[in-house]
């Protein structure tokens, strides 16, 4: 497979792993946060932790859009599906995420019309095929998926498709990184920067992390060699005493981002003054709502949305895990009450959630389940 196999070449990987060992100061403990859930998944899926020296600790970040969505928003979305003439559409990731009265999949089993789509354009197609029904798209994701939602809305408006609407849960990555750096219990040395988000926003928005916070950040691809090379680049910066933004994922990420995608987002969305993130509380200017020009396609204005805040189960420590303060297995519920089959938090559902990745690929490797802090 082109563009994949080159980045899984065992010999190159072994060489990069050696380089990392050479660059890492054995007397120092490193804490690198991989912001994006895609990286978390790759790290476990490819067994990359086994290729790093023990003094490099990878801390999983908040970059899993399903995971940071508060339960109340899922309830709000499902409340729209309760009315018989609405077809609820969402990506497959959303289907097993628990709301207060069950996941979208459980609602579907009880008779709600809930369908998996592979893109917002499919939801629009469904609306055109069902002109007498309302089709609501449960939009979720960082800047990675927001442009495709925006383009779909622009098309719906241009074609006058009135039975289509979007429930926007799009969030933005930079305020989340800022919230993590502001968190007092967080000690990080550097960041493995999100690859997919950066294809849209580019690398400039990270410059303050290097300049003001003095932390190196390397925007990284998702193959084993990408993640290891980015780790080596971070170590090299730290060794030289530098802090700058570097782009390891140059084959995909342009430094300036994707102007057309950013333009589409600006056309359709407006920044919410604040938005609740699961486990991290309210973060100002961290999410996107449809702007007034698209009010007619905004599900939050079209349907009555209860907007109830639901507190997470007390024992669940999703917030601590999301911020990287706890490792998945250190949560009291991990693997007992909370498993991928019967998830309590979304971190255990999404393939990008650190708990699901850890549970699926890692936690039974050795008989020791708990990890010392």
């Amino acid at each position: 497979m082109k563009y994949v196999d080159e980045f899984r070449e065992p010999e190159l990987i072994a060489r990069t792993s050696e380089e990392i060992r050479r660059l890492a100061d054995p007397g120092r403990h490193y804490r690198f946060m991989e912001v994006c859930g895609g990286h978390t998944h790759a790290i476990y899926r490819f067994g990359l932790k086994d290729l790093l020296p023990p003094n490099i600790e990878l801390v999983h970040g908040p970059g899993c859009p399903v995971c940071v969505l508060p339960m109340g928003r899922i309830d709000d979305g499902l409340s729209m599906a309760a009315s018989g003439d609405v077809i609820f559409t969402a990506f497959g990731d959303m289907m097993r995420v628990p709301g207060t009265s069950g996941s979208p999949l459980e609602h579907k089993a009880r008779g709600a019309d809930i369908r998996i789509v592979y893109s917002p354009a499919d939801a629009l197609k469904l609306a055109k095929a069902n002109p007498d029904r309302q089709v609501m798209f449960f939009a979720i994701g960082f800047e990675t998926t927001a442009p495709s939602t925006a383009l779909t809305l622009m098309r719906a408006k241009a074609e006058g498709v009135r039975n289509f609407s979007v429930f926007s849960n799009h969030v933005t990555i930079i305020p989340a990184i800022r919230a993590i750096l502001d968190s007092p219990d967080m000690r990080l040395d550097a960041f493995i920067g999100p690859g997919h988000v950066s294809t849209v926003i580019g690398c400039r928005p990270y410059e303050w992390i290097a300049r003001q916070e003095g932390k190196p950040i390397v925007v990284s691809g998702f193959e084993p060699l990408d993640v290891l090379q980015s780790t080596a680049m971070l170590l090299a910066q730290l060794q030289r005493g530098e802090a700058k933004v570097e782009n390891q994922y140059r084959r995909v990420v342009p430094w300036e981002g994707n102007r057309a995608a950013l333009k589409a987002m600006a056309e359709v969305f407006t920044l919410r003054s604040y938005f609740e993130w699961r486990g991290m509380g309210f973060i100002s200017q961290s999410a996107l709502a449809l702007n007034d020009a698209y009010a007619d396609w905004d599900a939050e204005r079209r349907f009555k949305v209860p907007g109830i805040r639901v507190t997470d189960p007390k024992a669940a420590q999703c917030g601590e895990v999301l911020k990287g303060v706890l490792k998945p297995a250190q949560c009291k519920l991990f693997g007992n009450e909370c498993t991928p089959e019967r998830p309590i938090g979304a971190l255990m559902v999404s393939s990008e959630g650190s708990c699901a990745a850890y549970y699926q690929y890692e936690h039974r490797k050795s008989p020791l389940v708990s990890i010392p802090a």
Partner: protein
Amino acid sequence: MDTPAAAPKIRFRDTQIEMAHGAGGKASRRLIEGLFAPILFGSSQEPLGDAALLSINGTRLAITADSFVVSPLSFPGGSIGELAVNGTVNDLAVSGARAETLVVTYVLEAGLPTEILEREVRAMGRAARAAGVTIAGGDTKVVEHGKADRMYITTAGVGSLIPGVQCSTRSARPGDVVLLSGPIGDHGITILLARGELDLEADLCSDTRPVLPLVEALAREAAQGLRWMRDPTRGGVATALNEFARDCDLSVFLEEDKVPVRETVRGACELLGLDPLHIANEGQFLAVVAPEYADRALEALRRAPGGQGARIIGEVREQPACTVVAATPYGGNRIVDMLVGDPLPRIC
């Protein structure tokens, strides 16, 4: 006289049936072990296999049944009728039995074009002849339009035991090798693409076929070393090996780069975020063989028609018990878990 037995204890706590309960993964296992087994199979401690072995008046037989609800009804490389024959023949084959006869039940939706029904009945006839099995009878039910999706087929089969084969997870030992008959994931990915919901095209066919000739070839050369066989249908190789590991309280160690996967299947899985080890197959099987028989078993499979793709993909180890571990080609390890949820509903 026996006192009436207490009602068996049910451990299945899910409040409703969902698609995942039919996906062949963890939820299916919970349903079978938590609800069906305690009520229907009593206190039998036998691990649940693909077919039941019986002794009737001294004659040893294998019996099994399987239902098919695949959507779409036909797809590149096969159709529901062919699956319905091969699926049951294969369940018997991996239980060490040669299918002798099948009975078949059709559930049809009113409005189904006769043309489609005839096409599928003919496909069953052809598949039965190819597998060397007769169809002895059956039953037909029709439900109102909208109460079923076109047609469902159930087949039940009886088979005679292949001489010398005595599989049991209890005979598995650390050091045994794991064999796979050929490339995985073809069926599941073919069905996914045949639904036309994704704008993806690939030159790929379902692998549906009877595995009996391969099982017989293996049995001729290595019957005494055969510990266990399974056709990795729903839930894929990962689920089948996890069940094996659990049933024998041992570990399976896979070498990921030894598992044969076609480029097209690998490409589709990469794009869709699926693991080929979780994708269904309809014409492959796994075998666990004692190490001293490994070379002979592999040779026998490779010489048999359709067995050229056979590989040794891993081995049985002591620890971590009840777990499947894969060595990635890069020197790391990962756990290979059973399928959770249902990425591809109604694939067979």
